[in-house]
């Protein structure tokens, strides 16, 4: 090897080498990239087997099951109140929202209706779970795309709403507060005023996030036009929630088929959609949803009726024979429980239709042809919780 000391000849050599490389007849070899099970972008333990051609993804196949806890089998040997504690762990960031559709399904079969005060508080806590869930998404998605600051702000401001949930229910993440026929307890003293403060803080947080994340040039470059899902494809995959609304489908279960027991019609709010269907649209819709949720909570806080929070239900709950499917618009999308009862203490069969399972099944479709860094944007913006996929 000859030593080259002259800088000019070094650059000439480098240029020549580059030319040679460019002129080579390129034959790239396929490569398999294994992402996860422990990757920060997987919110748990999802593994993705991506087959690459250079930087481009040819196929991406999610591998689930690292966190499968067999809830559908367990529900067949647990009583209804016990199941309520169990299903808190499905989507652990918005736990209260998991309880509601199941309790509503049981109430529907029993013909019980919660008193108005319980319905109001349910709706408020439901929306608070949504805020807690989505505010973490906004921070975490920023984190995944390299914007550390967003993460810190989100974790800081999420505490405001988690504190409210904790002071009302006793649990920061797993409230187990909903009961068939109402709620476990009434609200603590001073909760309504402190909730107003928290909601004002969260509305400011949304503005902050809009400047910090949505308005960020790098963020837009990483998300705009990436992972576009047309509405028809989204529908056929069963994509729901903000993911589907970001593809321009104006559909929200809270507005369009709200099950009895939630009082969304008592507040004035708006369903946001976005025509683009890309990662940016999904983030944007979620940000608007957080705002709307804060608005719903603020309005409902002022109109909570007085009265009991628990209807008359028997001490030992036996649900009459029948079938019911109740779905609500959870933070991640449509979450529903198909409950089959035979008049026992335990349900005969519960099919848990969780949002993330359908939301993530579109990954092989949407990731095809994307670049490796875009895979992070796509996974992050589809927003799944592993407990919600594996159940």
């Amino acid at each position, binding site marked *: 090897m000859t030593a080259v000391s002259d800088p000019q000849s070094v650059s000439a050599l480098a240029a020549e080498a580059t030319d040679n490389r460019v002129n080579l007849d390129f034959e790239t070899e396929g490569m398999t990239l294994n992402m996860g099970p422990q990757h920060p972008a997987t919110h748990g333990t999802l593994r993705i087997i991506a087959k690459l051609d250079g930087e481009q993804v040819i196929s991406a196949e999610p591998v689930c*099951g690292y966190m499968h806890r067999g809830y559908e089998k367990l529900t067949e040997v647990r009583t209804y109140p016990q199941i309520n504690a169990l299903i808190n762990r499905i989507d652990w960031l918005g736990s209260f929202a998991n309880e509601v559709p199941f309790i509503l399904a049981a109430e529907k079969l029993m013909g019980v209706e919660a008193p108005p005060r319980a319905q109001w508080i349910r709706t408020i806590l439901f929306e608070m779970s949504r805020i807690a869930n989505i505010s973490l998404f906004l921070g975490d998605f920023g984190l995944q795309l390299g914007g550390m600051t967003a993460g810190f702000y989100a974790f800081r401001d999420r505490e405001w709403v988690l504190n409210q949930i904790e002071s009302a229910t006793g649990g920061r993440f797993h409230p187990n507060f909903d009961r068939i026929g109402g709620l476990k307890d009434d609200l603590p003293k001073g909760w309504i005023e402190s909730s107003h403060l928290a909601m004002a803080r969260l509305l400011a947080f949304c503005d902050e996030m809009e400047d910090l994340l949505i308005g960020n040039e790098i963020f837009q470059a990483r998300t705009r036009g990436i992972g576009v899902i047309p509405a028809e494809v989204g529908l056929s*995959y069963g994509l*729901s929630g903000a993911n589907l609304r970001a593809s321009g489908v104006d559909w929200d279960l809270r507005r369009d088929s709200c099950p009895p027991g939630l009082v969304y019609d008592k507040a004035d709010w708006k369903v946001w959609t976005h025509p683009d269907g890309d990662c940016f649209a999904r983030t944007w819709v979620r940000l608007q949803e957080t705002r709307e949720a804060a608005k719903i909570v603020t309005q409902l806080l002022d109109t909570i009726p007085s009265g009991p929070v628990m209807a008359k239900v028997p001490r030992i709950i036996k649900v009459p024979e029948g079938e019911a499917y109740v779905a609500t618009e959870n933070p991640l999308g449509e979450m529903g429980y*198909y409950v*089959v009862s035979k008049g026992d*203490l335990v349900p005969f069969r519960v099919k848990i239709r969780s949002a993330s399972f*359908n939301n993530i099944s579109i990954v092989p479709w949407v990731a095809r042809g994307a670049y490796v860094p875009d895979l992070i944007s796509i996974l992050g913006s589809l927003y799944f919780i592993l407990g919600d996929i594996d159940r």
Partner: protein
Amino acid sequence: MSSAETETAEIEVAADEVREAVLAELKARLGDGVVDSHIRAGDDLWVRVHRDHWLDTAQAARAMGYRFFDFISAIDWLPSPFGRDMDAQEDLVVDPPAPKEPVPMTTGYAGGDTRFQVLARLYSVTHGMGITFKADLPDDDLSIATWSAVFAGANWHEREAREMFGITFVGHPNPINMYLPTDFVGHPLRKDFPLLSRRVRPWPGIVDVEPLPGGAAEEEEEES
């Protein structure tokens, strides 16, 4: 009060008519395919179709505007041979009671003739309502056509139903396990598959049963 009551009654009747119309259209499209149906007024519609018409059902419903795919799963209607509540005597490993006469099998809405039933739900964003479909599977041939060509989301749901119930979805593009290890034996969601953790260790709730809120103990306290 009275005006509100009549209002809801009117809505229920109107919604019922809507579901009757949907059912009539399904019957017109599928002919003999619709075996049975059940309508809960103002709430939900169940349609049981013949197994051979399963794929036609998906196409017909999709053509009728039911384009949102909710889920596919199955139900095993066999009464569980194991204990069903938390202190069930049947689950005792030591000194189990004598086996009881098997309870007759009963099925849910829209009926059923066989042990296994496939269950699917579609939703229409434009109509704002959903339909639950069921199809009977004979015990000797647990197979049915796949929906994955009509609804792409059915792919994963059918994989799950396949491993959990042992149902074959004919024409499925990728019939591999979703959750279970590849060499797993058995189908966990079948009723005759024991929940092993309960067989090995009895439910701890038997030992110390906490009084339920609002229960007898609390009432006594209130009285005293």
